[in-house]
């Protein structure tokens, strides 16, 4: 549905008659509406919804008068009737159709209004006067509902944020709209109806053979085996479909991978890198073990090699002490004290002055226990021939240190060589998007596994179907053989034929439904991919789920769960455009087949602030996308958003409107004037005007370009 002109009169924030012309040329289809907050941007969409369906979300029944502009109502006198209306001229069947919906209400007394009534009518203007044709039969209303089903209104005329919330936040509003639009419930109903007819005939056949239990048993068997066969055939069809999808994805991924690694043996390089890194780890480990061994040997050395020159002097003293029986000695200084204190010697002989003198002389040479032990230990350590001698220990240490220092040197050289080699391989690999290749490789491997499993499933299904078909054929023969003869046989044959036809019809509906679902998926996927992939700024890709027909974003072969920065808006827009293409295509096909559904034209889009929460890159991406995606696009936005996309939109816009807010001084003084200033061309347009005190605020449309 393309809108040529939208007129709003005395409706909500719009006082008097205000006319939006939506020109459309081959070069441009973009109309911009600039407006500060609360100036009536969203009201445009609400007014359109009111016109098309007579509904206004926030207005309760009986309060329709609240839709009439406050300014208009303030001037009314008791008893007077005031009205507000929305009118649109649209393209319909290559002609123009003008429709108006009016709300009228009578003022009872100040601030009290009668409920008001709403009228929908066609408007015909000629040179002299304007004619109104009320839509008593609901013909125009039906036309409108065909052009834009109410369930899809929010998809084509929306605020940027809510739609992507509906699409991607798990809420199934759009899915329900799509389901309704595809008449999924009716397909299901038709299939169930065919099945119910078939079951009816099956019951009839059973009733006809009520007395023949054996035959009934055969019929029951035939029925249950046929049921099994049908289930298996359905499973096979699903598996085939899934296999086809996986195969297509496998081929696409493989092609992408081949393209990325073209002209190089990247896998050989990667293998080489892995091997070299492993070698490096090994060499570093060995080097580390050498370092640890050297540290251990240094610690265990206790600095002994530095003391070797001390050994001759020390050995001489220690040998003297040994010769004097001072070391190693079992008798300590304290022991001698204890012996002298006693009356007898250790041999039992009584102490004399002479023996005591000998003991005292000996005591002069005795040492404390630990000193004695220290000197005794030292004595053995200074023996050059001892296995634990300082000299032996020093020589062993020298050999061990030499060995580990050499090994360490070798490993250092090896590490350096390997590091140089690894760097050279990494430099070669750096020319290719290795991470992307790796992820694609992983994805490809997953797909390959899936393909293999589905292939096995299909094979198993095939075998099972063969077995079941044979069983059903066998049962058919048995049923034929046991079939009653005579008049009952004729009736029986007739019922069986009818049952078979009902069965064929049921299967045909199921197949057609599946075929159409596949077709819808194909159309949506092609359109969403084409629109999204070209403008996405981060290499992500759009996909459409086969089962749910809902869009999602894939990056590096994996579904993105957290969409942000504008990706979701872009995806939502691409999906909505795809949806409009699907509708148009479907209606064209139906028309060619002459099976109802009136023709629908190109879809127009009115978008309120589609850049909410989008980062600058995605805002520009969305702007570029909107430029070429529809025959008519109307976008309203705030100053901050305009500044982001002005360089893209300004030169392409066929018309730029401004919504100037007229406000009393008590409200004006609280606002930031920058929020009302829009740069256009070489000048700034001010969209705030001050009214006298206590006046009611209103919005007026101005043409900026």
């Amino acid at each position, binding site marked *: 549905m393309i809108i040529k002109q939208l007129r709003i009169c005395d409706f909500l924030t719009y006082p008097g008659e205000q006319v939006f012309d939506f020109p459309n040329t081959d070069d441009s289809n973009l109309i911009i509406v600039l407006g500060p907050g609360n100036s009536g941007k969203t009201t445009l969409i609400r007014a359109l919804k009111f016109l098309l369906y007579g509904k206004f979300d926030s207005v309760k029944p009986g309060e329709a008068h609240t839709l009439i502009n406050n300014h208009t109502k303030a001037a009314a006198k008791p008893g007077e009737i005031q009205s507000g209306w929305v009118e649109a001229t649209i393209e319909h069947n290559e002609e123009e159709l003008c429709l108006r919906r009016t709300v009228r209400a009578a003022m009872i007394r100040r601030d009290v209004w009668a409920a008001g009534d709403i009228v929908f009518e066609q408007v015909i203007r000629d040179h002299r006067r304007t004619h109104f044709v009320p839509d008593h039969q609901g013909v125009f209303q039906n036309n409108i509902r065909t052009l834009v089903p109410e369930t899809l209104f929010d998809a084509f005329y929306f605020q940027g944020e809510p739609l992507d919330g509906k699409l991607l936040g798990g809420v199934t509003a759009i899915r329900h709209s799509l389901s309704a639009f595809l008449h999924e419930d009716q397909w299901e109903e038709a299939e169930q109806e065919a099945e119910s007819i078939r079951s009816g005939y099956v019951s009839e056949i059973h009733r006809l053979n009520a007395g023949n239990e054996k035959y009934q048993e055969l019929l029951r068997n035939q029925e249950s085996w046929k049921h099994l066969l049908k289930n298996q055939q359905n499973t096979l069809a699903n598996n085939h479909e899934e296999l086809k999808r996986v195969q297509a994805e496998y081929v696409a991924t493989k092609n992408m991978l081949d393209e990325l690694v073209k002209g190089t043996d990247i896998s050989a390089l990667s293998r080489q890198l892995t091997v070299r890194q492993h070698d490096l780890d090994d060499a570093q480990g060995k080097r580390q073990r050498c*370092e640890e061994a*050297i540290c251990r040997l240094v610690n265990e050395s*206790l600095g002994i*090699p530095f003391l070797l020159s*001390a*050994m001759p002097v020390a050995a001489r003293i220690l040998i003297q002490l040994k010769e004097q029986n001072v070391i190693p000695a079992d008798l300590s200084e304290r022991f001698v004290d204890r012996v002298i204190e006693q009356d007898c010697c250790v041999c039992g002989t009584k102490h004399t002055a002479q023996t005591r003198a000998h003991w005292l002389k000996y005591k002069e040479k005795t040492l404390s226990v630990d000193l004695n032990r220290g000197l005794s230990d030292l004595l053995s350590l200074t023996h050059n021939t001892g296995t634990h001698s300082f000299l032996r220990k020093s020589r062993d240490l020298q050999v061990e240190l030499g060995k580990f220092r050499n090994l360490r040197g070798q490993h250092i050289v090896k590490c350096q060589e390997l590091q140089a080699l690894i760097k050279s391989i990494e430099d070669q690999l750096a020319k290719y998007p290795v991470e992307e290749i790796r992820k694609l490789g992983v994805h490809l491997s997953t797909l390959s596994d899936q393909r293999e499993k589905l292939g096995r499933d299909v094979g198993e299904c095939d075998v099972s179907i063969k077995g079941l078909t044979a069983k059903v054929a066998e049962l058919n023969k048995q049923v034929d053989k046991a079939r009653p003869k005579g008049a009952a046989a004729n009736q029986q044959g007739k019922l069986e034929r009818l049952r078979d036809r009902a069965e064929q019809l049921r299967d045909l509906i199921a197949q057609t439904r599946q075929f159409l679902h596949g077709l819808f998926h194909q159309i949506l996927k092609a359109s969403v991919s084409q629109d999204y992939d070209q403008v996405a700024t981060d290499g992500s890709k759009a996909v459409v789920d086969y089962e749910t027909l809902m869009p999602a974003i894939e990056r590096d072969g994996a579904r993105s769960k957290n969409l942000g920065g504008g990706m979701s808006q872009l995806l939502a827009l691409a999906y909505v455009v795809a949806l409009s293409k699907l509708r148009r295509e479907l209606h064209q096909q139906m028309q060619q087949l002459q099976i109802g559904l009136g023709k629908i034209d190109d879809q127009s889009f009115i978008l309120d602030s589609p850049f909410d929460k989008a980062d600058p890159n995605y805002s520009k991406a969305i702007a570029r996308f909107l430029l070429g995606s529809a025959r008519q696009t109307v976008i309203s936005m705030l100053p901050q958003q305009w500044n982001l996309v002005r360089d893209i939109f300004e030169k392409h816009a066929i018309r730029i409107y401004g919504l100037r807010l007229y406000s009393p001084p008590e409200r004006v003084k609280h606002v930031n004037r920058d929020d009302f200033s829009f740069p256009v061309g070489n000048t700034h347009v001010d969209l705030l005007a001050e009214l006298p005190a206590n006046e009611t605020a209103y919005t007026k449309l101005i043409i900026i370009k």
Partner: protein
Amino acid sequence: MPSIRLPKSVEPLLQFCHRHDSSRDNACFDTYADLVVFAASVGFHDLSTQKPPASVEFLDSPYPIDLAIFKNQHLFPNLLLMGLAVEGTQDIAKNEQRLCLLIEGYAHEGAKVLVKRLKLTTDAAFHVELAKMLSDAVEEHQQHEVKI
């Protein structure tokens, strides 16, 4: 029981002790006592039987190490060896206080030598430098013996 204080000159070497709070990967000494004995041995070797001047500045932390620790860790023979060799008599063995002062002096001299060697290399390669010093000392002793 007398104790051995850590000369201030040892401070840059503390990082090579496993006991130290910020010990390095290539720490070579399990305890501060091991480090002191090693440094004293280097000092003894460097001064070649001369008595070391008494060290005057000591670290507050780590605390002085009780001589009993050296005895328990089988480091005492090394201290005695230095004492006997420099004094030429057994008297030093009986005077533990004097022995401790002597070892502090050697440790101070040795630490100076080690810090000088540390400056010639990197912290990460210091253990290799120590290994080289040890090997050189053995080599030097062998050449000396051959001459004799």
